[in-house]
């Protein structure tokens, strides 16, 4: 009974006991495949993200032209992922400089914090109801790539879209084990702390570019 832990738990255990109430039914929204994609895009665009429909083979070229319009000089990428290899191959003949996130943060901090223009990551899924990307960082595709550069580019496959977070948790089996970090991203960084006026890019990316890879070629 001597540690704070034991004292807190024993007080809680001495509280009057009531049967835990049941959770009443609640059904998250569901959509047809066409509605799902439309909702996903509309919600993301309403949160100030740019969504581009691309093909599995053609996205690196498409991205190159999108970034050229924005004057982006370099992109942080994950060299060991399939998407990273595809990007490096496609841009071998020219395009923004590729900065590989292939070392621990401590060796790359300066570049990430103040030199990177954009970062490219994949998304493990997308959620139509809220227009959210499911980021699932790995050792090959670390956490800060989607956070420190002023532009975040996310690749998401249309086939990975679900209707709701509840569905994502179920179909992706989250309860079986969570990664070090998982993030839902629903737009660029924003704030309304000053007179409820929206401003973008307060600490995270100012722009979010979503490349939606179609199930069939559009």
């Amino acid at each position, binding site marked *: 009974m001597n540690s704070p832990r034991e004292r807190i738990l024993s*007080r*809680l255990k001495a509280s009057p006991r009531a049967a835990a109430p*049941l959770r*009443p039914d609640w059904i998250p929204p569901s959509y047809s495949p066409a509605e799902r994609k439309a909702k996903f895009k509309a919600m993301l665009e309403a949160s100030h993200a740019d969504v581009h429909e691309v093909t599995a083979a053609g996205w690196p070229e498409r991205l190159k032209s999108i970034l050229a319009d924005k004057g982006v000089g370099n992109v942080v990428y994950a060299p060991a992922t399939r998407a990273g290899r595809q990007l490096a191959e496609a841009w071998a003949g020219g395009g923004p400089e590729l900065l590989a996130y292939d070392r621990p943060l401590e060796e790359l901090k300066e570049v990430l914090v103040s030199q990177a223009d954009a970062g490219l990551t994949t998304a493990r899924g997308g959620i139509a109801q*809220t227009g*959210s990307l499911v980021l699932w960082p790995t*050792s090959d595709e670390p956490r800060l790539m989607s956070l420190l550069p002023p532009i975040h580019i996310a690749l998401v496959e249309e086939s990975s879209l679900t209707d709701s*977070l509840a569905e994502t948790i179920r179909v992706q089996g989250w309860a079986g084990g969570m990664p070090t970090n998982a*993030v839902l991203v629903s737009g660029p960084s924003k704030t309304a702390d000053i007179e409820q006026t929206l401003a973008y890019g307060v600490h995270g990316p100012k722009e979010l570019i979503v490349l939606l890879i179609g199930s069939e070629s559009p």
Partner: protein
Amino acid sequence: MAADAGKLEFGAKAHVALNDPKLRANFRRAMDGLMAKRTIQFADEAEWTSLRARGAMVRANALARLPELLEQLEANCLKNGIQVHWAETTQEANAIVLGILEAAGAKTVIKGKSMVTEEMHLNAHLEKHGITPVESDLGEYIIQLAGEAPSHIVMPCIHKNKAEIAELFHDKIADQPYTENVDELTAAARKALRGAFAGADAGISGVNFAVAETGTLVLIENEGNGRLSTTLPPLHIAVTGIEKVLEKLDDVPPLLSLLPRSATGQPITTYVNMISSPRKDGEKDGPKAVHLVLLDNGRSRVHGDSELRDTLRCIRCAACMNHCPVYTRVGGHTYTFTYPGPIGKLLTPQIEGLDCAGDQPHASTLCRACADVCPVQIPIPDLLVRLRTEAVRPTSPDAVKGAGSSATTGETLGWKGWTLLYGSPLLYRIGTRMLGWFGNLMPSSAPMLKQWTSVRTKPKFAPKSLHELAREKGFCDE
């Protein structure tokens, strides 16, 4: 003494706030905006009804099983490599945080928004021991620069308009010209804080939900400062109240649908950050150590009362204050303590004691606006009435901290006399006859009458009672 100080404070402060046109305008504009945005989100009445019923029961369920779930959360966090600490008081929690920082040799700390660390007054404690905490949420950064406390639990600097913020930045940030352009002000904060993020030895954050099933800490935010504070520095300390635990991941979606929509009218926050472990071998970023501090500070006592326990369902969305006719007029600073508005006047007296915050449950018209919008169905007005009662007539001596502290002999005797008078027709008749004769001679300043007459006219007693008049008209008196 403390009781009196508290009483004077709310009343006197409310008076000052009500007469401050700038403050009134800042709150009015903000609250109207937040209310309108929330209304749009919950336009579908059937969806709102089923979603909030689910949310309320998810929270009630977690509270019913709180001790087991905390043990499960702890076990899973430990398994994942997150170190868990328990604190009974804010002093203990402060000491734990300081201990972790000192052991790591940390000198500067970057903070994500956390109301629990406000409740602990953690910043002052760290500063006293030579550690510099920097608030990184834009609103928190602004009030830290101004040396103020938050006036709202979601939008901490809502009491300030952009001219005041422009002035503050011009004054406190080197080379910052005066500008009221919100994009430029935001960019100035980003620039000023980038270096602080990169150089911080540790990050401190709050927690919105702690999932027992997987040992996952869920943090929601819009700015990215929460993600940065929990990813960039080598050490992360998360601080949370013990009530924030949820049984399973499946419980997150309904609450995540309720919280941002109730708070700011957003379908979801920009980021939902789910942390389950420190950096693993081979991973390239993320803190190498993650600590979770579980703070009680009176919550286990609240849990011990099966009615007041509903207080702990709160998910801190602030909808109750946005809709409160008192809060929207007097603002958050009037409440003195960390949590303002309806949830504040319910929670604070239970944590600090009715003897020092006993005036708070009275700062309500009981209009039920808070209960109508609360996404987890906390019957705030009913619980405020319960606290008012506990302050004068405790159900048991330790039902609530400081119970019975407002009871006065005069009032107790007064009510005893009233009971006696109403229990006996003879005494009642004599009593009303006497009031008819002498009642109007009583000065308005008579003890106990004084409080009533300070804001109302003194009641005038009729020379004859209703009984007498009825008898004269020939009704028979049984």
